[in-house]
């Protein structure tokens, strides 16, 4: 899968959707609920199940990242599955919001 900045992906096992904010430095497999995510426009394979190991959920408006891979994604739709790359869970980015300036 080519995780280009701005590309959108959906879970094969739940309602989660993400958009890539920062691409990975080397190719990785982006997963949700333990299964590879699929391009938003593509048809998700059927019959897959949410893995209990990756069922922490994905939230809208939260950013998830992996330092080593350089990947950062933004949750654009919520779902039950949690995010990982190659089986390794992504971390939640604790961002400090700035005072409203516009």
């Amino acid at each position, binding site marked *: 899968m080519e995780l280009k*900045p*701005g590309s*959108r992906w959906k879970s094969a096992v739940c309602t989660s959707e993400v*958009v*890539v*904010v920062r691409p990975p430095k080397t190719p990785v497999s982006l997963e949700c609920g333990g299964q590879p995510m699929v391009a938003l*426009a593509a048809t998700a394979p059927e019959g897959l199940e949410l893995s209990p190991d990756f069922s922490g959920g994905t939230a*809208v*408006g*939260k*950013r998830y990242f992996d330092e080593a891979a350089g990947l950062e994604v*933004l949750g*654009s*739709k*919520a779902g039950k599955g949690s995010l990982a790359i190659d089986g390794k869970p992504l971390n939640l980015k604790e*961002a*400090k*919001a*700035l*005072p*409203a*300036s*516009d």
Partner: protein
Amino acid sequence: MQISLLLEMAAESFPDRPMLSGPDGPVLGEEVLARARGGAAWLAQQPGKTLVFCGLNGPTLPVALFAGSLAGMPFAPVNYRLADADLRKLLARTAPSVAIVDADMVARAEGIEGVTVVTREAFDAACLDPANRAAEIEPSEQDIAVLLFTSGTTGEPKAAVLRHGNLTSYVVSTVEFMGAEEGEAALISVPPYHIAGISAILTGIYGGRRLVYVSAFTPEIWVDTALGEAVTHAMVVPTMLGRILDVLDARAITLPTLRALSYGGGRMPLPVIERSLGLLPHVDYVNAYGLTETSSTVAVLGPDDHREAISSQDPKVRARLGSVGRPLPTLELEIRCPDGKPVPAGESGEIHVRGEQVAGEYLHKKVLSDDGWFATNDAGYLDEAGYLYVEGRLDDVIVRGGENISPGEIEDVLRAHPSVRDVAVLGLPDDQWGERVAAVLVCDDAPAIAELAAWVKARLRSTKTPETWEFRAELPYNETGKLLRRVLKVELTTRVAA
């Protein structure tokens, strides 16, 4: 990532939260999204690749911005205050385009080749049309989100390009998604063709704050709207704030619902902000510095900085009230001397920035360096604690006998004189020094020049005392509150030559 996704996320997560204040009351998130989709489906059937907006502020503006994004059309708000010939020239540059134009401006925009004019009312109707709202929209591949014609204190306006990636990066990295409390409302009074007018839409909607519009700024309407809509947040440019405070003073009222007031878009005179702190002490103040080319804010002086500065006995900390705060953590900022090397803290130079939100691009012309830095053409310096002080446009810095003199510093000193209402300091050609310092003043009762000169000399190095003095009834500003220093310079230079 497209800016329309910001709207989709907000509207789908909180469909029944008020997103805009319309003429008939609040418009909910799901309705704003439905209108934007309706508008996009309609736009997809029109000729034209760019979506122009020529009109006053109002709830149609954010709908049009997102409809353009969904339809894959860069959004180009234009300055309707331009003279007819200039407006038409600008519109012609957007062809092939669809232009949403206020009904009373249609005659000024009609008959330009490649520009399809539609009234605001007709566009609003298209957004409400059930057939348009039900239509499928093809996902857009368009990279450019917004084209902003720079205000042009000099020469022909340039079309600054803001890509979807620049704007969404700014929003996603600085705003907490739906982080606003229920009931928060942001008052937008900067015009649609100002970068802050665009970023306010994006950050307001992503943050979950209802957008309230002042169709065109007057201090009376601004105050009435702030009170009537229970506004909690607002952004003003320097020339607006003083006039707003005058209205509050005259009516002997405050703004009880207002929680945060941000200001930017030019140098805020210290006496104005001090007066505001006195009149509205319950408000959080935010000073922001940013440029069109950087997708808005790159440095912020936050509420805590303001409180610390105003209550401090340490002159260094107090001086921060005149700074624009610290650079955003998501970008890099350097002060460089003319040979390109970074300068140490306390030394002036040109402000450079780098980061994902930094577009640094005009139509057909990228102006970023190879390694991604954008030269702002603003002069400034960082203090030891990392606070940024902006001294004005680099071209405005006066070079007198090899010494760089910032007009802003002298203006601040003169403005503190009790008789001085407004002031502009600029450099004029000088045979002996290269440039000499000139001051143009607006005074209640013009004091003697000797008195003013002594006032400056007592506070600044003697080379900074103006050598040419001129008194005027008012100073020239553009409509977003930027002092037209160059206009004064040309007038004064021509007069000296004649």
